[in-house]
């Protein structure tokens, strides 16, 4: 058995940390695209569509992310696909993120006073024009702080991909621990890695929120 120096551990964690960052970016970008489409459909759509999207959101918010990952992984096998941990983790985290972002953004669009809607319609703007020029710019300002805040949940969520064999920061930690058996040091370092990624985002989200409410918009 080889001896692990602290630098060996740190280096391996840093290498695996890349995949935590990449998976977070995939989940967040994918989730934002799907989430935006769902939000727009939900705002304007017909009743059955709205109802379906609500069900989608409730399903993802009311079940464990770990189960969603298992279902993506095993579900694909049932459908006859042989998916990698990469694909299963990306798909599950993208859907998970889209459901939460859809819910956050719907709240932001609804927070724009209804008088704004009525005024723009009365002024002769159609649905899309009102959305594009009046509602969305205002909703966007409200949406930024909670969206940044949620990105922290996405990063933390990627840790669960370790369970289906995706080698990112957490999985690298358990693998290193099996070889080096220094659990206290290793998991403290793993936690520190996530903290470095998440804490600045948390602080930034809080700062944005203060700025927004300081500006007197509610």
């Amino acid at each position: 058995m080889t001896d692990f120096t602290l630098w060996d551990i740190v280096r391996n964690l840093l290498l695996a940390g890349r995949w935590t960052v990449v998976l977070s970016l995939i989940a967040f970008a994918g989730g934002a695209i799907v989430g935006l489409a769902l939000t727009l459909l939900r705002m304007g759509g017909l009743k059955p569509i709205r109802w379906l999207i609500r069900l989608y959101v409730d399903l993802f918010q009311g079940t464990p992310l770990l189960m969603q990952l298992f279902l993506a992984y095993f579900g694909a096998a049932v459908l006859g696909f042989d998916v990698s941990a990469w694909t299963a983790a990306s798909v599950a985290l993208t859907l998970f993120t889209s459901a939460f972002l859809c819910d956050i953004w719907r709240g932001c669009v609804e927070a724009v006073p209804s008088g704004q809607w009525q005024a723009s319609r009365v002024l002769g703007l159609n649905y899309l024009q009102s959305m594009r020029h009046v509602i969305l710019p205002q909703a966007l300002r409200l949406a930024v702080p909670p969206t940044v805040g949620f990105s922290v949940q996405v990063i933390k969520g990627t840790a669960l991909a370790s369970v289906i064999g995706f080698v990112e920061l957490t999985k690298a930690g358990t693998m290193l621990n099996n070889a080096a058996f220094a659990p206290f040091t290793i998991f403290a370092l793993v936690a520190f890695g996530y903290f470095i990624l998440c804490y600045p985002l948390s602080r930034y989200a809080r700062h944005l929120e203060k700025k927004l409410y300081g500006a007197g918009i509610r």
Partner: protein
Amino acid sequence: MTLDFSTLLPYADVILEGLVTTLWLTVVTTAAGITLAILVAYARDGSPTGSRRIVSRLLGGYVEVTRNTPFIVQLFFLYFGLPALGVPISATVAALLAMILNLGAYTAEILRAGIDSTLTGQHEAARALGLSRLQSFRHVVLVPAFSRVYPSLISQCIIVMLGSAVVSQISVFDLTYAANFIQSRNFRGFEVYLVVTLIYLLLAVGLRLAFEFVGRRLFAFRQGGSA
């Protein structure tokens, strides 16, 4: 592709056992986590000075570290790390500890938001009327703050219940562990996880209804009143 749920039936007792574990973990965590959060909020309340200030700083660190690291890492840190330091800990105790510390940190932050939105004048008025710091915190600050943030509190407890699926990874026999166990026997992964996911969904809905029922009893004095 065919789905076959009948192979699950012989394992009904396994699922039940896991369900019971998930339930009691959630109930104990909710009670202990909220208590912890109240203590933390009390220690950090106001503008502490001297040694209280150091405690307040440390608690702030605990809250931030917990909120900015994944639950699964916290769990591994406690379960694998504490024995290495000479503190033996069982999987169940590690799971419970991790869940309580996690809920405690999030709830402390939620409570703080509620406390911050209480007018400082009320606090000062209570002190001027001769209430002690503890009395004023309990009657004037805590209860209104609690009722104000109660919806966030419900969501957080549900998040922790759903998050508890992760304790299966340190071999606590919870609902997810039951699913993994059955999957390893009948090789019907998708069916098992689908059923167990639905059970989690029902638990989440049930938990929300139970909390709302308790909330209506607890904060009945606020209904129809001002605010």
